[in-house]
């Protein structure tokens, strides 16, 4: 039986009197691939920023696995099981590809500052574990050959994948992808769709994604919510929502 992993009720935030997100509700089940779509400026990224603690909501509740998320800092929310990627890629450019993933293992594979300074045995064993784990994750994306190059030197598509790899390394329950296919050609997008499905199954996680590419949305999302002007326009099974006249109007105009 599936149960709700993320439960969001009446979420809202305004900036200078303007309601960026208003009365947003969503309930995402464990293992689901859920899509969040809508025209530009509809408030999709703002929802991500609320879910990850970048902004604090004015109204509403958010729970992950029954645990409250409101009032927590971004790093606390990550530790409670949500990881994300960014619309405008945010990698650690001057770190190697491997280190980008290893930073994300920070809270998972621990050793003390003294172990770092004095190079105690725990430093070596844990670093080895981190190297193995990061390689495992990089292999999923075929990034292992770039392991030692700077993140800044990766081709664009690979940078997007590295961001996903980094997010996965925090072992999230819920992964938020903000326009993962942005800037990709159709071939790359098709490949990405397979990868997203693969990581959902391999890492046993739930995925919420923002995307403009309707082919990708229709191809992999099981359910959708459509946002327009910060409020929900429609939600439900992907095929139903995409055929909803209201949604078509919002996308194509009158």
């Amino acid at each position, binding site marked *: 039986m599936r149960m709700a992993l993320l439960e969001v009720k009446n979420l809202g935030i305004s900036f200078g009197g303007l309601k960026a997100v208003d009365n947003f509700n969503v309930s995402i089940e464990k293992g689901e691939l859920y899509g969040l779509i809508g025209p530009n400026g509809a408030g999709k990224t703002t929802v991500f920023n609320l879910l*990850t603690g*970048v902004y604090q909501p004015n109204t509403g509740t958010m729970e992950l696995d029954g645990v409250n998320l409101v009032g927590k*800092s*971004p*790093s606390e929310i*990550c*530790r409670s099981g949500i*990881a*994300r990627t*960014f619309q405008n890629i*945010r*990698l*650690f*450019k*001057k*770190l190697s590809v491997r*280190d980008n993933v*290893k*930073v*994300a*293992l*920070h*809270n998972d*594979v*621990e*050793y003390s*500052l003294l*172990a*770092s*300074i*004095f*190079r105690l045995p725990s*430093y*070596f064993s*844990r*670093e080895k574990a*981190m190297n193995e784990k990061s390689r495992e994750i990089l292999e999923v994306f075929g990034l292992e050959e770039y392991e030692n190059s700077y993140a800044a030197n990766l081709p664009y598509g690979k940078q997007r994948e590295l961001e996903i790899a*980094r*997010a996965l*390394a*925090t072992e999230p329950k819920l992964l938020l992808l903000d326009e993962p296919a942005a800037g990709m050609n159709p071939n790359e997008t098709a490949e990405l769709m397979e990868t997203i499905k693969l990581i959902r199954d391999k890492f046993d996680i739930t995925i919420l994604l923002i995307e403009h590419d309707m082919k990708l949305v229709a191809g992999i999302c099981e359910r959708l919510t459509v946002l327009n002007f910060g409020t929900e326009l429609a939600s439900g099974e992907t095929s139903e929502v995409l055929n909803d006249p209201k949604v078509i109007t919002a996308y194509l105009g009158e």
Partner: protein
Amino acid sequence: MKWNKKVVVRVLAIVLSYVLITVLLRMGLLNRQYTALLVPIGVNIMLAVSLNLVTGFLGELSLGHAGFMSIGAYAGALFTLNVNMPSGISILLAMIIGGVAAAVFGFLIGVPVLRLRGDYLAIVTLAFGEIIKSVLNALSFTNGARGLSKIPSYTNYEHYTLVFVVAVITVLVISNIVDSRHGRAVCSVRDNYIAAESIGISVSRFKILAFVIGAFFAGVAGVIYAHNVGIIKPTTFDYNKSIEILVIVVLGGMGSIKGSIIAAVILTALPELLRGADDLRMLLYSIALIVMMLFNQSGIRERIKGRIESSRKQKAGE
């Protein structure tokens, strides 16, 4: 301990430089001016490497490093002036006291740092440096503007082994931290603090960590400095001193510990080599700062690299 190449190279470098210094000293190959440089070189290496942790790895410009140095110098000197202990124990304790005192101030600065970034943070570090200077000027137990004098000469060139060991410890501790999960976290804050938060890094914790460790070693360097020159005044540790350390870090390469060490040696020895041109020294430093930044950051370097590569390709094609 794993004996990989990196460790072997490090050990060799440490042993060889120690042997070199010893041989030069014992054989009397260094004149007075040069022996007098040995300890200042060690002090500058410690200052530069510790500032590099904050500026090169954490990515925050600290303009108050001389302030931390002064806290260490005063705390250490006040200790040795007021206790009666064998010199060895006295200087070791002084270094610990000086380092800890500076680290406490590093923590105090770390707190406003939590909320600030970039330009604002740089100005706050500058303000802290100036506040420390004017408080030292006003206090009576630090002897005000006249400063402390007759500080026992515990770290003159005859004690180069002690200074060498402390400098090596500083470099090893900081480079070990940089190359660890803590160091990676510090670098991730530099490269993108929003992304760092998003993967569960507590940004404030690592900012404070870098500031406290940087301050600690600047404090220890201050203690060595004080017991080398014998006299310290509040004005010794002004903004100019902080800039001098920054110049070493920038010229050596931000984020390069090796670079900081080499630049510290060269820039400490250079004024001796260019004696008489002391007025020109600071002028050259300032030009070096501007040129380094323009060269590294304006894309000139990339363009030159591109040109070299394309000419190479052309040659290969012929």
